[in-house]
């Protein structure tokens, strides 16, 4: 079907003809639908959208999107996507990955794509478990977690994706619960609009192998009291009664109650996602009460391809070689008669 920018898409335009085969009740369905709803809002042409994935449950995602897509090999999606973006800067390139895919077998590509700041969008489905291989612990599984490969409890301390990413110089990091599609859709749009690598960690419930892993933060009943959805420029307030907030006490973040001990709304820290110094962002990422969601870090920087293109243009300008024959005949050549 021919599609142009003038035409307003709906989410239906991004549904492929393939049947979705995730387990019933999986948050992956929420992510898929949120993406299909976000894309029409991005102002991007359908033919310019590319989804690249690795291996795992999440990595089936490209098959379900009626865009360009590649189901790659385990852990390598960020590297493949880097090649796609460098080949054609005009594309909107998305990496779909999971906690095993991006942080175990693909850990190296994950940190380096962030370091380079290629203009890609990475959606990390974090369910703290291996799903497709049937229930082994992952690099984000908790210590003590009993899984198929840790029957007596996991002994490997977990990565926090955000902590690792910001340590690897991520310019954009967001986190969102797998059961909040409206906010998720908006974050996907924000990812698209950000120039540079944007990473969004979705706390994705796996109903089969790790059911309820995030319930203490994401369950509707506790969400307001246990989750703080941060917004740039706004005070970091949460709670059913909007009376809890964060302050900086020495070098530590502390949860306080507005109205107690003389604390007023003015004392609450205002979220600055655009602060280059990652210290506070790292502290936010590491908190577990409240669990911070929303865009935690969004710092402008040159993208890798901008740096590359600028250099190539400079080289082109200064070069005496217009065609390969100019190069081949340059320097010491000699005649044989």
């Amino acid at each position, binding site marked *: 079907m021919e599609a142009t920018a003038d035409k307003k898409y709906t989410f239906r335009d991004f549904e492929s003809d393939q049947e979705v085969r995730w387990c019933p009740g999986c948050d992956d369905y929420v992510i898929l639908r949120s993406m299909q709803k976000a894309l029409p809002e991005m102002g991007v042409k359908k*033919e310019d959208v590319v989804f690249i994935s690795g291996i795992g449950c999440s990595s089936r995602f490209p098959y379900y999107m009626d865009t360009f897509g590649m*189901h790659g090999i385990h852990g390598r999606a960020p590297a493949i996507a880097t090649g796609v973006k460098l*080949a054609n800067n005009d594309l909107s390139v998305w990496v779909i990955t999971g906690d095993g895919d991006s942080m175990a077998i693909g850990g*190296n590509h994950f940190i380096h794509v962030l370091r380079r700041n290629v203009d890609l969008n990475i959606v990390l489905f974090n369910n703290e478990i291996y799903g497709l291989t049937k229930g082994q612990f992952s690099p984000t599984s908790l210590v003590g977690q009993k899984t198929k490969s840790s029957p007596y409890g996991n002994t490997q301390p977990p990565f926090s994706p955000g902590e690792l990413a910001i340590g690897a110089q991520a310019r954009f990091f967001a986190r969102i619960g797998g059961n909040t599609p409206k906010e998720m859709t908006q974050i996907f749009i924000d990812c698209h609009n950000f120039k540079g690598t944007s990473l969004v960690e979705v706390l994705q419930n796996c109903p089969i192998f790790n059911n309820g892993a995030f319930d203490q933060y994401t369950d509707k009943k506790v969400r307001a009291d246990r989750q703080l959805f941060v917004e740039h420029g706004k005070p970091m307030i949460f709670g059913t009664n909007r009376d809890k907030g964060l302050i900086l006490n020495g070098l530590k973040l502390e949860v306080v109650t507005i109205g107690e001990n003389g604390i007023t709304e003015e004392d609450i820290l205002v979220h600055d996602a655009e602060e280059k110094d990652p210290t506070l962002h790292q502290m936010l990422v590491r908190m577990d009460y409240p669990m911070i969601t929303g865009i935690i870090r969004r710092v402008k920087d040159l993208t890798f391809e901008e740096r590359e293109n600028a250099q*190539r243009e400079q080289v082109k300008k200064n070069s005496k*070689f217009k065609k390969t024959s100019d190069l081949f005949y340059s320097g010491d050549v000699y005649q044989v008669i």
Partner: protein
Amino acid sequence: MDVLESKRPSQPLEAVVIRFVGDSGDGMQLTGTQFSDTSAMFGNDIATFPNFPAEIRAPQGSLYGVSGYQVHIGSVQISTPGDDVDLLVAMNPAGLKTNLHAVKPGHTIIVDTDAFTQKNLDKAQYESNPLEDGSLANYRVIEVEMTSLTKEALKDVDGLDNKSITRTKNMFALGMVYWMYNRSMEHTIEFFNTKFKGRPEIVEANTKVLKTGYYFAETLELIPNAYTVSPAKMEPGTYRIIMGNKATAWGFLAAAEKSGMELFLGSYPITPASDILHELVKHGHFGVKSLQAEDEIAGISSAIGAAFAGDLAITTTSGPGLALKGEALGLAMMIELPLVVVNVQRGGPSTGLPTKTEQSDLLQAMYGRNGESPVIVIAASTPANCFRYAYLAAKLTLEHMTPVVLLSDGYIANGSAPWKICTVDEMPEINNHRFKSNGEEWHAYDRDPDSLARRWPIPGTPGMEHRVGGLEKHQVTGNVSYVPENHEYMTKIRAEKIKRVQNYIPELEPEFAQNGDLLVVGWGGTYGSLHSAVNHLAEEGIDTIGYAHFNYLNPLPKNTEELLKRYKKIVVCELNNGQFAKILRMHFDGYDIVQFNKIQGLPFGNTELMEKFKQLLK
């Protein structure tokens, strides 16, 4: 095909001319003597030239102090100290200036950068620093802070004054050259013990600096220029001297220009392939996009991404890197994208002999992936034709929509030879399978009826949205399919696609006898050695020996079996334990195939080849 061989049997392939130059106080005579003595004990024939003829004697003025020593070594008879220099070790600017003209273009110069001070440059009448002004662009310059490194090495040796320390730097240079040419340090260390008896600190200092230089070269993985053959008959035209790795890089530049596509290189540094990366990163002006990736896997994966998005994509590596790329190469084969993987082979297995040459990755290139995973495999055979085979690798991958492994090796990659300059106008057309539907029904896995190449719709093309992936796909739609019969069909069609490449590559034409008693078979980088050996026998009047050299390894040329039939006996000569011989036996039953293998990290020598062929002809 290039004719690359020496007319005079007295100049074998292994012959090499090394010249040490520096101030008269730099100990160049001692350095040269030690190298030639060691080489003689190593079993080499040598010819030395401690007193340079007039034209390389220092001219008048401030360049008067240059002293030098030249040694010509080889495994068979050497009759002259050599004319052109393969390796120049220049301890100062004056030495460089007065000797540069003797160095073969493309060959190596080691300089002590510490000696390139403004004062010394003035003394040598250099207007600008030759290390910085690009005047050495046609040479391989290895810059070493030799004086500083010598001082650093000796900082803990007691009883040495500054002058004694500086005077040992010639041993640093000697150590480097020993490593490059595989020489033992033993003889020279013994010499120190005798010569400086009673001065243990001098023995220690010289020994230490010699070893430091040796290990420094090892760490840098310095490789000598190996390929020093000059062509006997050359077609008229414009030539330049080119190294194999550079020729490979230029072949891809030409292919990109001819096809009108942008070249993408994803690569991770590895000896001896890195020079291709070093060359291609220079050429952003041709639109080359190069990514030095975080590892070998990212190198090929980024290239796969670039190929998906429509670039002419390549990745470069050597044996261990190809092993790491295996899974991704399987993906490229599975999703049927164009991709060239260059493997500059080195001694294996594992880390093996990184700086030495070998042909032991053939089976890895053919079979080193999970599942039924055939790809096109071709090999360059001379430094100059690396250009042609890189170009053809690009052509084949684009026209057949399947990955191509291009094999080179340390010997031809670091060797130099005259290249008759070839512009894109003289090269064959390159087509591709870029696709945009005009409204008719289409599928990403619709195939060209002749080549079986699939279509290549690229992102950014309206209406061409589709998905590819490593899961088995339906033969028509390309959607994921677990249907048993479909998997068998797809496996066979991927194999048939490679087989049909036979219809697009040239048949093999043997050289020398067209039929007879013995067919010498080679492939890849051994062309120079094998051709030269057979040619010598032909010159001796033996007319029953033929020579067939394979550049196309998978698939083999169509007439391969017909060719084998014409000779009573076949000898397959390889720098491995018999990999191509295995392949020939597997494909063609009932032929008398014998092997001649050398697995020493070294190229074939003329003498050993000629002896073997004569023995087989008896």
